[in-house]
């Protein structure tokens, strides 16, 4: 019994800590990049093209002779921006809609069909459309990706809500005199929060990758602003001669996504009272 306890809490703390550390690192790098980078990330220097890692250029230089380390640092801002906007839009709009469709029968049909429609529409196409209408910027691309991620939140939250509403404690809350909104806030939301967190960490990863694709197509972050996604795309043609160009942004994206996933898992476990003190 005691063995299980130590192991249980150990895992919870570990993923929360590791995830938090990775996210903290990305945030730290982004903050530092405002005041200091090893080199000017925008400085084109044709004499120093495609250099390998060295004490001067920690991670080497790209086709235009720009310092990769500096560009990665500045690019982390874009990544955080992307994550916060896209996941924020999707979660803030999708979660209440999901709860609503799970609790009211009248609206559910309409919202769910609208959700199906939105799901059938490709996210990238929506982002390109937004770019064409509002001008291409990271913000418009991310709002579009966020809107396109709403259906996923609606579906996940609705499923969770239906499950909560079928429990006796939801019935008990009604019998205790609670009305719909009270049940939604006190019972449904806390119990579907773990689903929202997991969905958010998945959506974050999708958003980062979508930003990369959009930037490549010219509808995301406009050049020369560095973005991990575009750095990855730009390295594509040099993949066989200079593979390191792809490795650095790839590793950065992987670590950031891993960080958010671990953090999400950790949060979910941390706030589940059943896991907190099992046995």
């Amino acid at each position, binding site marked *: *019994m005691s*063995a299980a306890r130590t192991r249980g809490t150990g895992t919870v703390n570990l993923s929360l800590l590791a995830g938090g550390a990775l996210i903290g690192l990305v945030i730290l790098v982004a903050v530092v990049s405002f005041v200091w980078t090893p080199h000017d990330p925008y400085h084109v220097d044709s004499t120093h093209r495609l250099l390998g890692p060295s004490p001067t250029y920690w991670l080497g230089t790209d086709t235009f002779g720009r310092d990769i380390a500096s560009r990665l640092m500045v690019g982390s801002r874009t990544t955080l921006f992307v994550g916060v906007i896209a996941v924020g839009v999707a979660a803030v709009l999708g979660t209440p809609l999901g709860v609503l469709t799970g609790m009211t029968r009248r609206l559910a049909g309409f919202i769910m069909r609208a959700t199906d429609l939105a799901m059938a529409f490709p996210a990238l196409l929506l982002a390109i459309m937004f770019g064409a209408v509002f001008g291409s910027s990271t913000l418009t691309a991310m709002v579009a990706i966020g809107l396109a991620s709403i259906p996923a939140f609606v579906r996940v939250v609705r499923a969770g809500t239906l499950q909560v509403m079928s*429990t*006796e*404690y939801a*019935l*008990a*809350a*009604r*019998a*205790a*005199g*609670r*009305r*719909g909104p*009270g049940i939604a806030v*006190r*019972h449904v939301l*806390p*119990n579907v929060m773990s689903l929202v967190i997991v969905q958010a960490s998945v959506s974050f990863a999708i958003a980062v990758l979508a930003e990369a694709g959009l930037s490549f197509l010219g509808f995301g972050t406009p050049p020369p602003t560095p973005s991990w996604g575009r750095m990855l795309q730009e390295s594509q043609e040099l993949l066989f001669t200079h593979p390191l160009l792809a490795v650095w942004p790839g590793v950065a994206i992987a670590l950031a996504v891993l960080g958010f996933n671990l953090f999400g898992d950790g949060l979910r476990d941390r706030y*589940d*009272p*059943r896991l*907190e*003190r*099992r046995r």
Partner: protein
Amino acid sequence: MSKETLTVRRLAVHRHDGEALVTGVDLTLAPGERVGLIGESGSGKSLTALAIMGLLPEGLRASGSVRLAGTSTDLLDTGERALADLRGNRLSMVFQEPMSALNPLMRVGDQVAEVLRLHQTGIGRAAAAAKAVELLDQVRLPDPAQAARAYPHQLSGGQRQRVLIAMALANEPAVLLCDEPTSALDVTVQAQILDLIVAGTAHRDTSLLFITHDLAVVATVCSRVLVMRDGSIVESGPVEQVFTRPQHPYTQALLDAAEPPASDAASSVQKAGQSLLSVENAARVYTRPRTSLLTPRPRVAGLRDVSFDVAAGQRFGIVGESGSGKSTLVRLLAGLDRPTSGSVRFAGREISALPERRLRFLREDVQMVFQDPSGSLDPRMRVGEIVAEPLVALGRARLRTERANRVRDLLDAVGLPADAAVRFPHEFSGGQRQRISIARALAPAPKVLIADEPVSALDASVRSRILELLASLADSHELTLVFVSHDLAVVRQICDTIGVLHQGELVEIGPTEQVYTQPAHPYTRRLLTAIPTVTRALAGVSASDLASAPADLPEH
């Protein structure tokens, strides 16, 4: 080796970290002998059966010895392949939950035939299928050829359990282990299944180990009994001796809980006040999803034309089996659902037509206790918040300190320590959780308490304490009690008036003792006949007697 079919010596089950879950279990089964293993949840009775079968879950280890007649080695030392050959063949098991024990995607006839083909090498496909139908006929499934082609979800719970018994007996096993085979079934169905198990094993000279928490069932089915507590056998012997002259205080306690004294409620009949809850010609029809575009949505009557009154101060019991409409009726009374037609009134006010926001008066005066003590408490709320919820929802006790005081008083009233308020529901046992649920229901000081199967998920000894608590609270808080249960013994213990529900109709209503001693409706008589009791079993009432009820009602 003696003539015993199964000999278990010093059986123990340990966890990986060394903690003992079962210790020193000795048991023998003679051919055709029926032995009961009694214990409450967590006593280790199921683990004992799983250890004998070699089916212990990952992380558990068995030691001691298990010998089966006709095999040379100790079963605990036998490899998985050799054990697999024995299981379903010489050694069979019937589980509690017949739905999860059957493969939902396979026709039941094929599942029975599979057991035959697994262990009888010579048997062909057609012969196995024919034998399967024959076996299904032996377990008295109506139209066995048709039933063999059915999928598990098309059968009722009792019919599925029959299929499992057919599978277990298919290869004429030497030993049959039954783990709570009837606990999920209604009493009338239970009676038939028990009869079937007794007949099936007697016919084949199979030894039976019958595991249950229900003493009356053991008394009816078995000749010898073992009482298990905290992983070891505390008492064993012939049924008659153990149940009439129990040596161990735990056995005595179980017996007391199993045979509750007839209620004092019944004698103190009705301080009858005015009618508080009244139901008039209430019906509730459910519509199912369409099965085809051309036909109208199928309609199922949950409740038809039910009328009765509950007077202030009364303890009104509602008895019925699964599907009888008990839960539907409870929801109507509590204003959680509306009747399709008819009326439900509380204190003279019609509640069936009111929208939620105008039901406040009802929520203040009518509170509920639910069946599942873990499902009815929000796992993410602390007990203090749970108990205070009706106060918050109804806008009472707005001050934090006032609420905290009220919660402490309520927890005290139901026998829980004050520090329970800061803990989460999962830290409590089933009985304690039901106390929390009762505390919540009492929070707004209601006039009526509706209890929907409040003790059916609890062990017998816990059950009687919760019933005592409910009865004493009803007295001290001057509550009108509506008590719903499938268990007639429980209702008899606590209620002064009883209504019997059958397939959505209230077939009988009257004072408790009258319903019990002079039941008017055939269904009530059948229900009463089917209940096993220790006293009747000791007087010689057998499983087949329980099942031989008036035949004018179909199994459903």
